[in-house]
């Protein structure tokens, strides 16, 4: 089971999108998720689709990876589309067969909403495909800095997030090791009735939790010994550099929003 697990979805490639500052990408994606809702006719949706395709092309990400991200929601999209075809009664009647009445408005609504889902999922997937989780954390920490004034512990949250991400591969190895050790002693995690499987998980969880708490304590001691005193005056190992292309990305988003505003009906 564990071998199938790849941590995160980041694909380290060389592309303009990869090189963008994570702050720019976060702002861009956040803006895009809102701007998408401006589209409401064929022209504006077409514009969005073209824009997304260009974005995907620039990221050099294989479409295969984007399609893989659709798997959990493809049924939802299909279901929504069918609902609209059968239930929305607007526009001209296209055809009729017994109960079934398909209207032009239903097909149009269904297509638009499915397209909106697709575009949203593609664009948000592009963020996690082109940016490593740790860069996203750095970007979020920097963007949320103003909230420090409201007593939001931004530095602490970002630190915890980085530690979490750093330890996931380690914990994954450990889980794998404990699972194999328990399997060697006859534990069965993948078959049998639910009750047995839940019971089988307990001997996996106990050593895992014990070592996790121990690890936390050791790390705290190590950090204290090295003089960690919280966020004040702490310098960073990874620095973010805002460049011209990052500003350009945000300008492009504003232009897109303006075009959508102009073409929507």
């Amino acid at each position, binding site marked *: *089971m564990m071998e199938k697990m790849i941590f995160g979805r980041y694909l380290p490639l060389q592309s303009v999108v990869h090189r963008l500052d994570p702050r720019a990408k976060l702002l861009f994606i956040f803006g895009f998720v809102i701007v998408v809702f401006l589209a409401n006719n064929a022209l504006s949706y077409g514009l969005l689709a073209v824009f997304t395709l260009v974005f995907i092309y620039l990221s050099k990400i294989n479409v295969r990876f984007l399609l893989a991200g659709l798997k959990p929601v493809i049924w*939802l999209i299909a279901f929504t589309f069918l609902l609209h075809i059968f239930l929305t009664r607007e526009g001209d009647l296209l055809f009729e067969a017994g109960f079934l009445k398909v209207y032009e408005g239903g097909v149009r609504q269904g297509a638009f909403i499915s397209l909106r889902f697709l575009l949203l999922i593609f664009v948000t997937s592009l963020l996690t495909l082109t940016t490593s989780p740790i860069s996203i954390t750095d970007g979020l920490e920097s963007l949320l800095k103003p909230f420090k004034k409201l007593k939001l512990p931004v530095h602490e949250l970002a630190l*915890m997030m980085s530690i979490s991400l750093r330890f996931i591969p380690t914990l994954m190895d450990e889980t794998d090791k404990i699972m194999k050790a328990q399997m060697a002693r006859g534990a069965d995690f993948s078959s049998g009735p639910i009750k047995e499987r*839940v019971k089988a998980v307990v001997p996996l969880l106990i050593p895992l939790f014990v070592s996790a708490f121990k690890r936390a*304590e050791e790390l705290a001691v190590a950090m204290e010994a090295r003089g960690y005193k919280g966020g004040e005056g702490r310098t960073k190992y990874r620095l973010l550099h805002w460049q011209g292309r990052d500003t350009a990305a945000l300008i492009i988003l504003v232009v897109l929003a303006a075009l959508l505003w102009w073409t929507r009906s």
Partner: protein
Amino acid sequence: MERNKLITMIEIAIMAGLSFILSKVEFGALWAFGGSISLIMVPIFVMAFRRGWQAGLVTGLLAGIISLLTGGYVVHPVQLVLDYPLAYAVLGIGGLAVFHKPITTGRIFTGLLLGTSLRLACHFMSGIIWFGSAAPKEMPVAVYSFLYNISYLLPEMLITAAILVFLKKTAPSFYKQSASIGSSSASY
């Protein structure tokens, strides 16, 4: 920086990582529309019972963000917040039922029920908001959202409950914050 605060912070971080790993241990068939039954809630509740509801809240928040960053899906801005960071963060509030009180099976269930109901509320609202914006007007969106979300949350809650009760029997020290070996008990 105070030692206990630092240990709590790091425990939160590691438990959030563990949540992510346990979210991959799935029971039964993968559910159709994205939801699945997993052990993701176990470390969040252990933290909430061990270090209080705030610690549980932050553990859940981080666990939600990690699952979003590693393969979540976004179909609506409100859905993003409700389905990921918030849905898992509110689980921590279940800690109110247990923290600083002797741990009993009854309190575990109360905490679990409190946290899971709040999570259900988040997924339920998210379902109404984004599905409501997508489905035809005649659809009973609320009923659909409720039935769908409870269909995986109820079994997930029962499995989590079983595990938390097993842990109470076999490793009660997980729920006590003084359990860590080297930390000074004097500060409590």
